[in-house]
């Protein structure tokens, strides 16, 4: 383990973390404000990835595809909100989990029918496929560096929106006390639609950025969804700050799982380390979540006074 390698893994953890953050930010807002458990958030990520890939192959321009895919995902999100989710706000979490579980099945098959079951081809545009020298001896993928920058930019933007604007004021108010919103004379229905569309667009952005590095295929949403839930639960539901901290934490823990085996190797026999290492690495983030919740049942940054 050299210092450079550790720096590189920190970058990897950060990159994975901001990716999770983009998903988590939308989910945690929808959660915090509308009290909606939306398992179909992963489907919006998938839709974002598919739309971006589709537009990219049609237009040949990654930027143009991004510009088209984001509003398109936003529209899909709003349609889903209007058609299916609106009636769920007053329901309990159980109904929400099940109905949105149903939406997952629907979206996965819909995508399979429209684009086929085979994964879609997509790759990095040439101008993003190079490497930058981060430190002497450490080259890092331009694209992944861009993902980190975009993720951090979105985090700052979100922080500004939430802490400096009227919309953000409403969001904060809604997250800590829903009934207050209608008392303030806010058009709650509209606010919900806006926030949901906003969350969908963020998930779409994550999907868009995931396209060139992951497999764009049906079911891709669920693979990341559970980790995103881990993130927001660790961070504290409804808290953007919690989502960011949780995402970076999970990204780092997951990435540094690669060191579990070599470290175990120093205390256990190589055979035992070989079999225990990967198993522990797979369980790390869930272990992290269990420990956090055991100590702080409301996550690291609870938004609601208990």
């Amino acid at each position, binding site marked *: 383990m*050299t210092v*450079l*390698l550790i720096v*590189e*893994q920190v970058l*990897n*953890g950060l*990159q*994975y973390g901001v990716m999770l953050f983009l998903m988590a930010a939308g989910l945690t807002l929808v959660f915090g404000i509308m009290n909606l458990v939306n398992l179909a958030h992963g489907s919006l990520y998938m839709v974002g990835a598919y739309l971006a890939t589709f537009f990219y192959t049609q237009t040949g321009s990654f930027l143009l595809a991004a510009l088209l895919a984001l509003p398109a995902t936003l529209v899909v999100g709003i349609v889903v909100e209007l058609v299916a989710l609106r009636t769920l706000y007053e329901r309990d979490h159980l109904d929400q989990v099940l109905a949105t579980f149903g939406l997952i099945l629907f979206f*996965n*098959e819909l995508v*399979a029918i429209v684009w*086929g*079951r*085979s*994964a*879609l*081809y997509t*790759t*990095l545009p040439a101008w993003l*496929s190079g*490497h930058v020298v981060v430190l002497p001896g450490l*080259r890092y*993928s331009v*694209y*992944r560096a861009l993902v980190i920058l975009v993720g951090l930019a979105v985090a700052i933007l979100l922080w500004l929106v939430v802490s400096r604007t009227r919309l953000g004021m409403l969001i904060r108010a809604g997250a800590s006390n829903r009934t207050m919103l209608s008392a303030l004379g806010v058009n709650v229905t509209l606010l919900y639609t806006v926030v949901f569309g906003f969350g969908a667009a963020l998930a779409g952005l994550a999907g868009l950025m*995931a396209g*060139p*590095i*992951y*497999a764009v*295929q*049906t*079911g*891709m949403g669920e*693979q*990341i969804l559970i980790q995103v839930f881990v993130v927001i639960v660790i961070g504290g539901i409804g808290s953007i700050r919690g989502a960011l901290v949780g995402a970076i934490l999970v990204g780092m823990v*997951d*990435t*540094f*799982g*690669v060191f579990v*085996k070599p470290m175990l190797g120093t205390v256990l026999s190589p055979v035992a380390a*070989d079999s225990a*290492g*990967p*198993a522990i*690495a*797979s369980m790390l983030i869930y272990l992290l979540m269990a420990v956090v919740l055991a100590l702080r049942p409301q996550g690291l940054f609870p938004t609601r006074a208990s």
Partner: protein
Amino acid sequence: MTRIMRVALLGVLAVVLAAGPALAQEKVKIGFITSLSGPAGIIGEHMKNSVELALDHLGRKVGGLDVEVIYGDDQRKPDVGKQLADEMLKKHKVHFVSGIIWSNVMLAVAPTVTSAGTLMIGTNAGPHQLAGKMCNELYFTTSWQNDQTPEAMGKYMRDQGITDVYAMAPNYAAGKDMISGFKRYFEAKLVGEVYTKLGQQDYQAEISQLRAANPKAVFVFYPGDMGIQFLKQYAQSGLREQIPLYSVYTVDEISLPVVKEAALGQWETRYWSPDLKNAANQKYVSDYKKKYGKMPVFYGAQSYDGIMLIDSAVRAVKGDLSNTKGMVAAMRKADYKSTRGTYTYNVNHHPIQNFYLLRAVKGAGGQLEMQIQKTVFENHKDAYYKECGMKW
């Protein structure tokens, strides 16, 4: 909820439940189990397409008899596969059960079928148990035993004198089998052996570790979407030009159009390739492309072979489907035109066949394709047949 909605909901339910499958008639009945829904459904689609193509080539008859194929979606779950097998045996009363992509589904299904006295023709999964201690007179496969393919890669790399190899696979049974199969013929020590999470999406952390270990070659097993992700990320990391990548079951005709250049130069071993020069294969490949508009993949070739093998058996007993012994004897001869060319069956009913080294190259039309470079093994036997007590 209104009364009308309730009635409508119950009504729909009643209709759907009542619409059970139709009555059976006397003809050859084949139950074909594969994964049709979910992400793995793409493999099932290729297998199903190839079964249909085989039936087209046989004039929609098997062994001269009318045929009915009942498809089942195992959802990649062993218990669902087992239930489908029960349904096919007991309800549809099929004469053959075929298909099965996954080792775990196969291990649940095959004994169920054979213990009912019915023939099981596997067309993909090749778990070592069924080649060894659990081998059965009524179980045949038209694919391979899992370990054979990595064994071929191990042998090739040893023959080339490649050292300092770094191996990676997902952390599950097949992943570990693949690495141990590889090591069986590679023999030299690996400089790294890494198991990643099953279903992992991002391999950047592992690729950073790999780069730091600075091996001379990398051997991986990453099937399905894991392969797509790994290949993209490996190429994006710039390692493609620096460290050659060798793999098994990672690049195929399903993933190639998805990763394209990211797979350029990739080495794979396999028993079959679309460019195998024999009449049966050329007919299969060209008709498949004509009918379905895409390249076939080995999953399909095996399934096509499965139907052809059944056809040869039914033909040999002159349509007497009760003559199981006769059909087993006929199948042991592998007397049909296989897409891989001629092969023979080992005592454990697993093929003794050639394995080739393939490489992803730019084809004549500019698109990427797998091409055979050389033969690594001729008439290769699997490592487990001695544990099988069957004699014939």
